[in-house]
């Protein structure tokens, strides 16, 4: 492999500190490296630079050269090269670094400029904070504490604009709050490639609107709510539900596809209120699909399994586990794992399969990918099953081998970890021939037909790891406690493993990882606590030949596409 060329570094001086940054960096990002905040509204690191909010004003100067001789002009007072300061402030977002650039991010002129910008922005901004959903995470509120004057000199009437406009099925617009930063317009055009938003009218009449006859209804529309620096765009689902300062943020992963979008669960007292993306420049930048955000509703769904059942009657976990152990001891077992389960659970399923000689299966879920953050493979963790050895071949959508083996009478017991076997190609008649042990979260036809039902936890209720399409192992944490009656999958699986006569494995992720590292070659050098929040890339050469059903996504190219591009260049 050819090593990536080292980025050209440029030395700049920010507030008296020399700093080397890659060429092309703008002043906001360069200052961020020094932990200096340059306030901004319209600038977003993943969007084009518009430079229209004028909040990121900085003072800048360049080294002086003699126009005739091109020799550096030395300042006799300091003995250093003289700096020609520009007499007016410049915008930080639109200023890319140049060699020797000098920047002041907190001079009196800069502060004056920002205070002026804040006063103008607040002139027509409504005093909606008590009813505004953005309160608590509003950039305008934040900067008003630093640069606001605390009272208004504006005695004229404030602008009146439409409030409560439905831009689309998931986004509500309050035009009075809009500061015309155009982040949402640029996002729709550049990232979602659905150019429906724009400004109409001029001056103080300027209003954000949808193109006539169109709606903001693409599957990425809620990202405009995330990037809106004020409360103009709000999520219709989250609107007026809870103030953000009450919500606990837990790092998690999107469970809708193999992209493994990094996300945050916002919960309070065991109730999840919303899901938002978390920045990971290697996976999802700062975006997330709308379809993944509503999946938190599965947690409080009415069809959650909460009762341990044995042959159709409620029972205790221990009795059910003993019955399951007896079934497993009889042999002729087949195990259907899940691509939605964590690496740890798949590992324990593999530990369960090995001593009883059962074969592991998985069910594939595929649909068309959108080339952004939803891939064709709708299982978040197929690769975890490959890595842990639960399966060696890619799964198909139907359990044909299992179906054949049941027909031949080779299988007497099927362990299903959250998979609906009837949806995966088995018939009710086939299920009636075998005993089913179902470990899952929601009721379905298989849980209804199962001899033993062991209620388990949803992804947001437990910790674990997923391996995404790049073979990047990423962590998620428990955000809320599970419902009463449900047991952590790891506890159930560890007890089942122990019942086969093997030594009892740990039933908690941190304690389990040393044995995972000792058993699974690809994870040998890792521990749960050592996996960074942005994930770790695994060596995927062992599985490079497998025909993964993957298209291109934001930061992933399937091997075939990458090879074709390599051949062209």
């Amino acid at each position: 492999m050819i090593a990536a060329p080292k980025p050209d570094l440029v030395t700049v001086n920010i507030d008296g500190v020399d700093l080397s940054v890659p060429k092309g960096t703008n002043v906001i990002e360069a200052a961020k490296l020094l932990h200096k905040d340059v306030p901004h509204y319209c600038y977003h690191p993943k969007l084009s630079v518009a430079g229209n909010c004028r909040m990121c004003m900085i003072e800048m100067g360049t080294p002086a050269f003699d126009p005739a001789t091109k020799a550096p002009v030395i300042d006799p007072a300091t003995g250093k090269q003289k700096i020609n300061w520009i007499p007016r402030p410049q915008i930080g977002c639109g200023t890319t670094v140049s060699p020797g650039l000098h920047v002041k991010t907190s001079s009196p002129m800069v502060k004056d400029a920002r205070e002026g910008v804040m006063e103008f922005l607040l002139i027509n901004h409504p005093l909606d904070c008590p009813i505004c959903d953005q309160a608590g995470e509003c950039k305008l509120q934040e900067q008003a504490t630093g640069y606001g004057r605390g009272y208004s000199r504006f005695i004229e009437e404030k602008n009146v604009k439409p409030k409560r406009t439905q831009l689309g099925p998931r986004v509500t617009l309050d035009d009075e709050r809009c500061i015309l930063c155009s982040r949402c317009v640029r996002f729709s055009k550049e990232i979602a490639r659905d150019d429906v938003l724009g400004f109409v009218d001029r001056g103080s009449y300027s209003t954000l609107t949808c193109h006539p006859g169109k709606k903001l209804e693409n599957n990425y529309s809620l990202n405009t709510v995330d990037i809106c620096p004020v409360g103009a765009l709000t999520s219709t689902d989250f609107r007026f539900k809870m103030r953000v300062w009450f919500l606990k943020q837990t790092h998690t992963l999107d469970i809708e596809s193999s992209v493994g979008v990094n996300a945050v669960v916002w919960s309070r007292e065991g109730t999840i209120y919303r899901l938002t993306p978390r920045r990971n420049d290697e996976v999802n930048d700062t975006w997330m699909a709308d379809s993944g955000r509503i999946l938190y509703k599965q947690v409080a769904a009415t069809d959650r399994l909460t009762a341990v059942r044995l042959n159709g009657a409620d029972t205790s976990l221990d009795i059910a586990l003993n019955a399951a152990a007896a079934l497993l001891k009889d042999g002729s077992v087949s195990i259907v794992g899940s691509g939605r389960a964590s690496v740890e659970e798949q590992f324990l399923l593999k530990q369960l399969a090995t001593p009883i000689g059962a074969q592991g299966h998985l069910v594939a879920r595929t649909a068309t990918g959108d080339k952004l953050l939803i891939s064709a493979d709708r299982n978040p963790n197929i690769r975890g099953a490959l890595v842990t050895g639960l399966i060696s071949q890619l799964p198909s959508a139907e359990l044909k081998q299992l179906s054949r083996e049941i027909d031949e009478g080779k299988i007497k017991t099927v362990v299903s970890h959250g998979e609906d076997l009837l949806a995966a190609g088995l018939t009710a008649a086939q299920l009636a021939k075998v005993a089913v042990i179902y470990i899952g979260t929601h009721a379905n036809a298989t849980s209804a037909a199962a001899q033993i039902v062991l209620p388990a936890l949803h992804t947001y209720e437990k910790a674990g790891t997923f391996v995404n399409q790049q073979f990047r192992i990423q962590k998620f944490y428990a955000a809320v406690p599970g419902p009463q009656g449900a047991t952590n999958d790891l506890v159930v699986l560890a007890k089942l493993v122990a019942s086969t006569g093997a030594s009892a494995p740990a039933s908690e992720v941190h304690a389990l990882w040393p044995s995972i590292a000792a058993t699974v070659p690809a994870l040998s050098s890792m521990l749960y606590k050592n996996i960074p929040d942005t994930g770790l890339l695994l060596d995927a050469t062992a599985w490079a030949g497998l025909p993964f059903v993957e298209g291109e996504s934001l930061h992933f190219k399937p091997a075939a596409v990458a090879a074709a591009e390599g051949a062209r260049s």
Partner: protein
Amino acid sequence: MATITVERKPLSLLERTYIPNIVAGLTTTFKRMVKPTETLQYPEQRPAIPTGYRGVPTLVNDPHGREKCVSCQLCEFVCPPKAIRITPGEIANDDPNAHVEKRPKAFEIDMLRCIYCGLCQEVCPEEAIFLQNQYSMTGYTRAEMVNNKDRLYELGGTLPDQHYKWDKKKTAAEAASRGGHH
């Protein structure tokens, strides 16, 4: 530690008769018998409450009958003993107060937790919650000691409004829709 022995002053003859002390005590007794009484016959009689008294927290309406609370939940946030619990809700579009957009669906103050500190009143940006004159909260069960929204408005009543912030907003919007200032 050294002990200092203090010599007690011997009593005089008059003191030894106890008569001056008995007379002094009886004088006080007879004075009180003829003076007007200080005792209030609580609960029939109630004391006058000084201004600024911090009694039971209540929710108030404005003089137009609009509930002033918009469920911003700042009081819930600031409440030191976590006595306040609010469920925010949206105001329906056909409601006369639809322009306010938000109101509490449920508002509960647990008076067993409340410490009458008044921070909720201080923090309220809408001047909707006030600690008023009510000081006596009793109940037989824990549930009775939780004031729900209806009870809070019943206790609070109506207080004058200096600002009519939301009414002004509605007027401006109506003027704009008639083609006035945009």
